[in-house]
């Protein structure tokens, strides 16, 4: 029983990360129409910037929490700049292109970012994780000890999801973002600054990806490729929400996390979680796909 509970917690925290990454994907997709295959790579690069600040330089006299905060701030700041640069340098110029073309462009971005990171931080080697809570700290929940870092992930994921929802519902800028996601042409006629909304959603999406990347470092053998390839699980979660619904996306993320974790109670395998992710995508897509031909079933 306690083993089951432990796996549930692990699954939930993994799911929290998928949910976060998927939130960023859905946000960018809805506002700018770009399905971002480079989302994992962007989170990866920002995570490595944080890692560099954390481990790369001496921090004489600073307490551990201050170093952590500094590293995270650096990573997040980099993520925001990266999102902005990509929007300004690349995606602003291809706004009217077909959706699939924009998706292929993100594959180019993925390849470039992944290689650049691998040049700087070397590939396929174990990197020390960034802990938000002290490594050994545990809570006891109904007699089951739970690592504090797992709790942090679930809390941050839920917090960011609700925060994003509140931002979109309750603020003027959030309304503009929803307006642009419905129709950017019309939004322009209403005086909404479409360019700015696009830029902010890229920055926000990139920021969330960085948060997901930093949070996951204690739990996987994290290197440039494994973080980049988190994109597959995140896209699976995003597809559960139909690339539209934010609540369903978050739910999908947690569901997928649990699904990928429980089987590892019995089988140790590199690929099994991904196989499950793939099967979940397929099942969801086949259930969701409209009957008949796409051009008819509008």
């Amino acid at each position, binding site marked *: 029983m306690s083993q089951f509970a432990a796996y549930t917690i692990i699954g939930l925290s993994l799911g929290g990360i998928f949910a976060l990454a998927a939130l960023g994907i859905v946000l960018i997709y809805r506002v700018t129409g770009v399905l971002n295959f480079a989302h994992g790579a962007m989170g990866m690069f920002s995570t490595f910037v944080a890692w560099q600040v954390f481990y790369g330089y001496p921090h004489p006299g600073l307490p551990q929490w201050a170093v952590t905060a500094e590293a995270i701030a650096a990573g997040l700041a980099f993520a925001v700049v990266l999102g902005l640069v990509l929007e300004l340098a690349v995606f602003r110029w291809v706004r009217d292109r077909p959706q699939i073309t924009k998706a292929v*462009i993100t594959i180019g971005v993925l390849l470039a970012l992944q290689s650049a990171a691998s040049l700087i931080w070397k590939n396929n080697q174990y990197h020390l994780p960034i802990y938000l809570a002290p490594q050994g700290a545990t809570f006891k929940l109904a007699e089951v000890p739970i690592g504090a870092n797992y709790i942090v992930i679930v809390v941050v994921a839920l917090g960011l999801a609700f925060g994003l929802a509140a931002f979109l519902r309750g603020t003027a800028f959030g309304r503009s973002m929803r307006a642009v996601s419905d129709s950017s042409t019309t939004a322009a006629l209403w005086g909404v600054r479409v360019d700015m909304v696009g830029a902010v959603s890229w920055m926000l999406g990139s920021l969330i990806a960085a948060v997901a990347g930093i949070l996951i470092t204690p739990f996987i053998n994290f290197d440039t490729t494994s973080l980049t390839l988190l994109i597959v699980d995140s896209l699976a979660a995003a597809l559960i929400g139909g690339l539209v619904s934010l609540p369903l996306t978050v739910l999908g993320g947690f569901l997928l996390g649990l699904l990928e974790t429980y089987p590892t109670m019995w089988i140790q395998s590199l690929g099994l979680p991904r196989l499950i992710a793939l099967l979940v995508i397929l099942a969801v*897509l086949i259930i969701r796909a409209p009957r008949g031909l796409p051009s008819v079933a509008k």
Partner: protein
Amino acid sequence: MPGHVTRFAMAIVAFAILARLPVGLDTGFQFDAALALIWGFGILSLVVLTGYAGQVSLCQATFAGVAAYGAGMTVSSLHGGYLLGIVAGVFAATVLGVIVGLPALRLHGITLAIVTLGIALVFDKYVFQDHLFDWFTGGTGGWQVTNASIFGISVDSREHLLAAYDILLALFCLVAVLLVNLHQSGAGRRFRAIRDSELAASTMGVNLTRYKLLAFAISAGIAGLGGSFYPLIAGSVSPQPFWVFTSLQLAAIGVLMGVRYVPAAALGGMFMAVVPDVLTRYGHGTFMSRFNYDISYDWFQIAVGVLLVLQLILMPDGVWGDLRARAAAMRIRPVKKVRPA
């Protein structure tokens, strides 16, 4: 429009010229030449699938990998001849192609891209690297292939690399001609009809299920044909060449060179095999080796990414398509809209 005979003649001339190309070069470049053709097959497979039939796939390297392991297993573990290995490899890839094609019956565009990326990742992490499949992959060491022969011609990775290159090149030229023929023929038109409007295609008597699966089967078979030669020219198989990033690179370079055009595949294959090697040879001691010793792969992939982004912004029909259009515009006769070949 050149007829069939002209096309075959052009292919033979191309073979004669290209076969001379790596003669006299060192083994490294000879290996590159053969590798260029293997990746050339990979991109050719995208020309059929994406360029003709309009279906998206991000798992072409997986097809090649399955064929490579299939060929390796047949030769090493079942002690078949290499020819049998190739047949087995292509067969395995084709079967996988049909299976991957099944979701394409319901999915389109970006969702299909996501699913095929998932398939590439599953095979990379699960099949090629998991101990469950050691019988297929030969374990961590992979299959070793030495002293193989095809039609009595000795081919292997050390002494007879050029023989392998020639056979590959002949096959490549043949497949290229067949694909151009296909484009102009009934089946090619049906593929293009599916690409332009599935709705009209199905109501005009094109069996969508059959032709989508056929496109995936042909495509996977072509990718597999290239892949099944990999153990031969490299001497062994490992997961690395066929991992998920190779699939992404194949798609990226295919689009970069012009995914609707057969010659773009040759161009792309060459680019994919030769550029990393050139970077390794001449890049050391320059700024490129400042960060990392293994410069070939990473600098190359950065270049692919950046070029792809630039190409999609500046010349959407790909390098080959754009060159063709410019050449056509420079001729004085009235400009006809360029059609893919």
